[in-house]
């Protein structure tokens, strides 16, 4: 039986164009630009200067704040400059720009391909290792993984949930990773279980990836306490709270973290990164990226070094199509539109989607006809039409009391609105303003 969450949800066309394409290793770029801030939280503090020579895997920026993450060089070469570059955020932000020279790695990294199943480290060392290797969540939010693994005082983790849902249309990187690196991933899951002190893990996979479900179910036979669960195809099945609801039928209360109901959610890719970090001593310096789009000649999945400009990725997939209208970092539902093709791949880049001009055009915005479709698709049970209006009229008190902060920005409302209202745009703005107001009130 395929499980699912109850409230809301939509089913956009899946368009998984690259699901049968094995992961290819993309050539190392000539120049890599590695931003300091590739994670949620404080930017890392830079350790290198212009002219320094670095090796692949060398620590180049240190996450010093509690919520922050280390940054490693993904290539070997010379630091050309430390300057502002346009990154996936759409802004010019500081990054280390490295002119690549050869491919010399740190000696401590184990580059051998064989599977290492035996886990030697204890809970504390594992978390330290994950911290050292700069692992962050690869499911989208890039939340530093070591922080997530430190269960707060008074709370108890009961179950680890591995998010292999990949509910975004087009994207296939997790899918391919689960098929090709399934064994490593399961070792990663075991490591995460030790780190959290739980003895049960559930891997949730949407039912449009039957091969991955089968593959991992077979492999999981060999592992204790790992269960694979198929899920109904419904967006946003992969959103943390919805996934928890679907898998263990618990609801994370408003404004609370999953640990409140004893769950911790990690992405499948994160599990693989944890395996590499702990067993192979390898920092998070490359990741799987899907390059896709309807007019792209050769959509595919690529293993890409962090810092590679997306233009090189696009070349590898057959070049930029003529009719390109929009280039999106991530999937079509939650991804960010990029404003330059020189943006580097960062830890959180799960895919690059190239949308044709025709499809990328937003339709004319009409008045809300109160069809209540947005209300019925919202997985959080909010009233997007109302939030939009309240934000437009700057009624922040009511925006807050109507629970704007619960919005997970899944975009279902925006997707479904027959009047093409830019609902999520305004809701995001509202979250921002209300967040500011709440913080300044808390500060007082």
């Amino acid at each position, binding site marked *: 039986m395929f499980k699912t969450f109850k409230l809301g949800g939509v089913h956009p066309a899946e368009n998984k164009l690259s699901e049968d394409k094995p992961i290819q290793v993309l050539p190392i770029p000539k120049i890599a630009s590695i931003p300091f801030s590739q994670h949620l939280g404080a930017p890392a503090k830079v350790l290198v200067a212009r002219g320094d020579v670095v090796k692949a895997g060398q620590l180049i920026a240190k996450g010093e704040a509690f919520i922050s993450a280390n940054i490693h060089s993904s290539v070997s070469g010379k630091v050309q400059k430390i300057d502002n570059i346009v990154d996936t955020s759409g802004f010019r932000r500081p990054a280390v720009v490295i002119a690549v020279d050869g491919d010399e790695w740190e000696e401590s990294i184990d580059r051998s391909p064989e599977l290492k199943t035996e886990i030697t480290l204890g809970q504390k060392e594992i978390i330290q290792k994950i911290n050292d290797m700069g692992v962050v969540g690869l499911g989208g939010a890039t939340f530093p993984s070591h922080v997530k693994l430190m269960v707060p005082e008074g709370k108890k983790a009961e179950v680890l949930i591995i998010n292999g849902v990949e509910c975004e249309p087009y994207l296939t990187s997790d899918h391919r990773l689960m098929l090709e690196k399934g064994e490593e991933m399961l070792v990663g899951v075991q490591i995460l279980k030790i780190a959290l002190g739980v003895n049960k893990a559930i891997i949730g996979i949407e039912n449009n990836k039957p091969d991955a479900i089968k593959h991992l179910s077979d492999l999981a036979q060999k592992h204790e306490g790992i269960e694979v669960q198929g899920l109904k195809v419904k967006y946003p099945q992969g959103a943390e709270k919805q996934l928890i609801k679907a898998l263990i039928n618990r609801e994370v209360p408003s404004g609370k973290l999953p640990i409140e109901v004893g769950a911790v959610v990690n992405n499948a890719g994160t599990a693989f990164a944890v395996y590499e970090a702990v067993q192979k001593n390898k920092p998070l310096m490359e990741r799987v990226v899907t390059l896709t789009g309807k007019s792209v000649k050769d959509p595919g999945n690529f293993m890409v070094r962090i810092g590679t400009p997306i233009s090189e990725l696009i070349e590898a997939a057959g070049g930029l199509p003529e009719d390109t209208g929009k280039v999106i970092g991530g999937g079509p539902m939650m991804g960010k539109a990029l404003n330059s093709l020189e943006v580097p791949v960062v830890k959180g880049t799960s895919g690059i989607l190239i949308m044709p001009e025709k499809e990328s055009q937003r339709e004319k915005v009409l008045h809300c006809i109160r069809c209540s479709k947005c209300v019925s698709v919202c997985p959080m049970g909010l009233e997007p039409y109302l939030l939009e*209006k*309240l934000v437009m*009229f700057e009624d922040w008190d009511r925006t807050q009391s109507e629970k704007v902060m619960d919005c997970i920005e899944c975009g279902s409302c925006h997707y479904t609105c027959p009047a093409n209202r830019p609902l999520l745009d305004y809701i995001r703005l509202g979250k921002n303003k209300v967040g500011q107001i709440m913080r300044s009130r808390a500060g007082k």
Partner: protein
Amino acid sequence: MEYIIIIIGAIFVNNIVLNQFLGICPFMGVSKKINTAVGMGGAVLFVMTLATIVTWVIQNYILNPLGLQFLQTIFFILVIASLVQMVEIILKKVSPALFQALGIFLPLITTNCAVLGVAILTIQKEFNLMEGVVYAIANAIGFSLALVLFSGIREHLDLMEVPKGMRGVPIALVTAGILALAFMGFANLV
């Protein structure tokens, strides 16, 4: 049964605002927010009941025996005005919280013809004291119902971009008109 007819008649069939045209000024003026509308409704309920009792007593024990019916208007308004002012002063001292909620509406009530109107109508309809009280309460409820309904609609309209020329008072009046149209369905209910 008598009372039920009075109540339904006053609230729905002959709604004081939508059908009798009493208390239109506060209906238009204090209906921009639901909360204030509720406050105003409460204040009117209180004053209307009190005023009806007092004026009924005056009519039946002073004016009628002395044959001074022609002084009705002046007596009633004087009494109502003093009553409102007294309530205001006392409330301010005794219950600042209630004053906060109702206080700002009290002065408005003096010039609210609903209160005087109901007092006069009670006499005209030859109600006894108990019927008069029920009538006053029912009318106040009818007033509050119309006011709260209307304020809900107006708050809703505030989030819509009504065409420039119609914004504000005109659209409020048109809405009230359609509401009155809808309430005609209650015609002859009792």
